[in-house]
């Protein structure tokens, strides 16, 4: 939060700042940014988490149990949504789920207390967009590789009356094409909105306290109480959004894998 002349900007947290100038690639400056650092932190944290589950003991300890809980969760999801063919997509969906989950949760950590600059990677449309396009590309590649041009029958539900087929085809095609956007926007908006709300309430606490002890008690304390509740809610949203992203990806892959 930048304070310029006492003004608190709740959007400052989303600013990408260059730490190290890096190199140029196709006209774009590839700089090491705070965003890149948080992506790396997510990957390292995820790797460390997974390493605890690699003891491969017959009777698992607590940590191994936790890691196996996550892998089992994704396994069950793939099995329930895609069936036995879903097992080969499990590594991708697992990576997607865990990467989003760790980015979401790490972005919520109060590292600002330690003087660090918290940054939520998944609150950036560029990031969620790339992930959504990756998922959508897999659906397209699998769909056309497996069913060739027959994949277009995805847009005509079973039992559609003949005169309705052109309209239904267009509607279904549109809804299909909107998928990557909805996938990217859902995660981006959910993470952004929650973080803005938390920063705005934090601004209330600071500004009201600065205005005087009376305002601080009257506005600051209720705002702070609300922040505690919303922080808990945001933690839930962080998990749910990662789940939704993985779930929708598995549902879309199911369309491609098991064409009706």
């Amino acid at each position, binding site marked *: 939060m930048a304070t310029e002349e006492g003004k608190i900007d709740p959007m400052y947290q989303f*600013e990408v700042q260059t730490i190290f100038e890096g190199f140029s690639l196709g006209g774009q400056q590839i700089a090491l940014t705070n965003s890149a650092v948080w992506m*790396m932190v997510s*990957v390292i944290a995820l790797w460390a988490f997974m*390493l605890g589950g690699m003891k*491969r003991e017959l009777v698992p300890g607590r940590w191994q149990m936790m890691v196996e809980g996550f892998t089992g969760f994704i396994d069950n999801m793939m099995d329930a949504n895609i069936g036995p063919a879903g097992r080969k997509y499990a*590594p*991708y969906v697992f990576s997607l789920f865990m990467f989003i989950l760790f980015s979401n949760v790490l972005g919520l950590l109060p590292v600002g207390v330690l003087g660090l600059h918290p940054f939520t990677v998944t609150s950036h449309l*560029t990031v969620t967009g*790339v992930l959504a396009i990756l998922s959508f590309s897999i659906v397209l590649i699998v769909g056309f590789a497996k069913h060739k041009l027959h994949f277009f029958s995805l847009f005509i539900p079973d039992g559609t009356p003949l005169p309705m087929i052109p309209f239904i085809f267009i509607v279904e095609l549109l809804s299909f094409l909107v998928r990557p956007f909805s996938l990217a926007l859902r995660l981006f908006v959910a993470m952004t909105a929650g973080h803005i709300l938390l920063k705005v309430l934090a601004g209330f606490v600071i500004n009201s306290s600065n205005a005087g002890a009376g305002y601080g008690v009257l506005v600051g304390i209720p705002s702070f109480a609300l922040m505690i509740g919303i922080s808990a809610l945001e933690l839930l949203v962080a998990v749910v959004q990662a789940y939704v992203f993985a779930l929708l990806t598995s549902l879309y892959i199911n369309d491609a894998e098991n064409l009706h």
Partner: protein
Amino acid sequence: MPQIDQIAATYGSQIFWLLLTFGITFFVIGLGMFPKIQGTVDARDKRIADDLEAARTANVTADELEESYRVKMENDRSDAQALVEASKAKANAAAEKRKAKSNADIAAKVAAAEADIKARAGEALKEIETVSAEVAQDMVAKISGAKVTKAAALKETKAALKHG
């Protein structure tokens, strides 16, 4: 909103770093670690299923053993019962035989004793007759002075004794 204001300036680095980090996530964690953990879980599930199966088999075997044991027990019991029955019958028969033999012995002894008693009673009676006849002879001689032969006296005495 910085996400959109900065998009033109930062999309290159954002996409580059995301592909790099997500690529590492996918190849190292998704393809490297995830299947190993899956394998561990699968191996454990298989082990549990096998153990359960073994336990079920052992249970069935135990049931069969118990059944065969029960049958054997039943057979042994009926064998023992038959044996007891047979020895009881044998003992009864032996006892019966001994009893019969004892009865016969006793009857023989009783018969011998009775015969002895009868013989002795006869002897005693003869003695009484003789003595009575002598007494009667003496009495007649003393009272009437008539001499009665021994034979006559005996005859009279016998008659008198008979009439009681």
